[in-house]
């Protein structure tokens, strides 16, 4: 099943920043020009990309016959904004030192990351059918592979926050313009280590650091508020000296504006506390803990594809 390449957005497009030229000096000239002058996708275009990514995720997970459906659909709008609007990346130069970095702290949502990296041209499209199979680069949880744009091995919840902070500290030390993003999750926010990292980012005033919190209210054993409540996440991050932006994690305009705002914040890390719906986009999966970690059956897949096949 071929995936349509999306218009001119072959390279993940960076944002306009004063030091744009300098920040691209380490890229070959053509690649640098591409990054500087490429047209930013509109909100509507980003929504369309997110929609395509949802289809891609479902196809991958359904084919694998196991894995996570709910989480990827819950975070994909944010990941679409990162990979196709905000982050400065070049799939032709995946190890470009000045690139932005992304750490998928919620490693089980790997299909969302893989869908973005396939769509952005980092991972060959045919690899999608290898998800979770022996010998595949698309492991059940991400395994670091810079050529494919996978910056870090993740899957054990709670650790990504600190790893991303480490990358942000390194960028600061090396005077690189790289910004470091991570996807956190509300179940993951029960891990003490996530808060150790949150405290460190606040303490070290990591203003090149942005966390996106996928606050879908669900974890494996049920609803977060019943298992072990993490509320209020915004106030917690505020108390840890973060700049907090509360957004609707399925509203592309809000996500994009928050990501732009984060770039202007000085002396503080930024977190997007994003209210989301697990399984978003496919009614039968929405807000149901069961779909945290199961693949769609053939029947569910048909229903899902029917719903996603719109105008």
């Amino acid at each position, binding site marked *: 099943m071929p995936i349509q390449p999306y218009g001119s957005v072959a390279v993940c497009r960076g944002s306009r920043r004063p030091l744009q030229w300098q920040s691209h000096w380490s890229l070959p000239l053509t690649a640098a020009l591409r990054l500087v002058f490429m047209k930013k996708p509109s909100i509507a275009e980003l929504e369309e990309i997110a929609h395509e990514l949802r289809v891609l995720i479902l196809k991958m997970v359904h084919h694998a016959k196991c*894995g996570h459906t709910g989480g990827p659909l819950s975070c994909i709008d944010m990941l679409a904004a990162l990979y196709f609007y905000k982050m400065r990346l070049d799939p032709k130069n995946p190890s470009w030192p000045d690139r932005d970095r992304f750490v998928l702290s919620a490693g089980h949502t790997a299909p969302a990351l893989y869908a973005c990296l396939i769509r952005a041209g980092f991972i060959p499209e045919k690899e999608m059918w290898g998800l979770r*199979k*022996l010998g*595949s680069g698309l*492991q*059940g949880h991400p395994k670091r592979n810079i050529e494919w744009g996978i910056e870090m091995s993740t899957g054990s919840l*709670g650790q990504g926050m600190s790893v991303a902070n480490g990358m942000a500290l390194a960028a600061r030390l090396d005077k690189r313009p790289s910004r470091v993003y991570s996807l956190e999750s509300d179940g993951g926010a029960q*891990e003490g280590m996530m808060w150790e990292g949150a405290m460190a980012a606040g303490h070290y005033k990591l203003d090149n650091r942005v966390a996106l919190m996928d606050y879908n209210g669900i974890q*494996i*054993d049920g609803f977060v508020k019943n298992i072990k409540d993490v509320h209020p996440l915004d106030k917690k991050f505020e108390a840890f000296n973060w700049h907090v932006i509360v957004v609707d994690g399925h509203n592309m305009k809000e996500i994009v504006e928050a990501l732009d705002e984060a770039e202007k914040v000085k002396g503080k890390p930024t977190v997007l506390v994003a209210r989301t719906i697990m399984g978003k986009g496919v009614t039968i999966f929405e807000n149901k803990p069961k779909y945290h970690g199961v693949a769609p059956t053939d029947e569910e897949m048909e229903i899902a594809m029917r719903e996603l096949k719109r105008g």
Partner: protein
Amino acid sequence: MAEIATREAYGKKLADLGDKYPNIVVLDADLSCSTKTGVFAAKFPDRFFNMGVAEQDMMGTAAGLAASGKIVFVSTFAIFATGRAWEPFRQSAAYPHLNVKVCATHAGLTVGEDGASHQTVEDIAVMRVIPGVKVFVPADGVETEKVLEEIVKTDGPCYVRLSRAKSPVLFDAASYQFRIGKGNILREGSDLCVFTAGYMTSIVLEAAKKLEEKKISTTVVNMASVKPIDEELIAAMPARHRFLASVEEHSVIGGLGSAVAEVLTARAPARLIRVGVDDQFGQSGDYLAVLKHYGLDAEGVANTILKNIS
């Protein structure tokens, strides 16, 4: 042959023990459906605490409960129980020698598709090394129940390694007697003696048939009690066999093979062929395919042993 995963047997047995022992408390870290502590939770909701995705908090809480007279069963995936929560277990449960029973599921490679982040081939090594901690690796559902019956009566910290995948029932529930510190001989041969445990026991029994076809008469010793280990039994084997081997769903560094080698060097020096995961991480895949890839299916085990003795 009937099949059951050791985690299933654990869940059922734990709920039974809850009747007999009103001071059992069970903790889980957002995996109660997978570890099967959910069975106990449904029956005794007041004595079950879901600690969320917070394994360190869970272990510390277990220590506090145990310090207050409870027998605490702690469950999550083996990598998180013995990895993330290792130091709280060592400091707050093992050092004060408290009644914390870590019964962790999804050990080894048979986790399958979730891949290396959720598999563990290091857990026996890191738990075995903690002073005073007893370590058990039951081979089937029956042995799992027997191990539970023993540890609930035994004072102090324990680690029980359980599997996600179903495996054949090898023991007879009515007659099988499990004893802490004792191994048991499942079949007797005269050329080769294989020490094994857990999920690998049934695979080694199959491998033994293949070896028999190659005229290698094979003894299989099931070592569910990895610590304390049956020193007498191990020390007796070199005199009765030309070759010795260990087979485990664990790194060859620090696991059952190492434990057996420690006894051999001290009491009856002999060569030991250690079969297991050779200083590598696991990976995603159907669990049977993963086992085969790492040479831990019956054929792979038989071939590795044959290669090493010819």
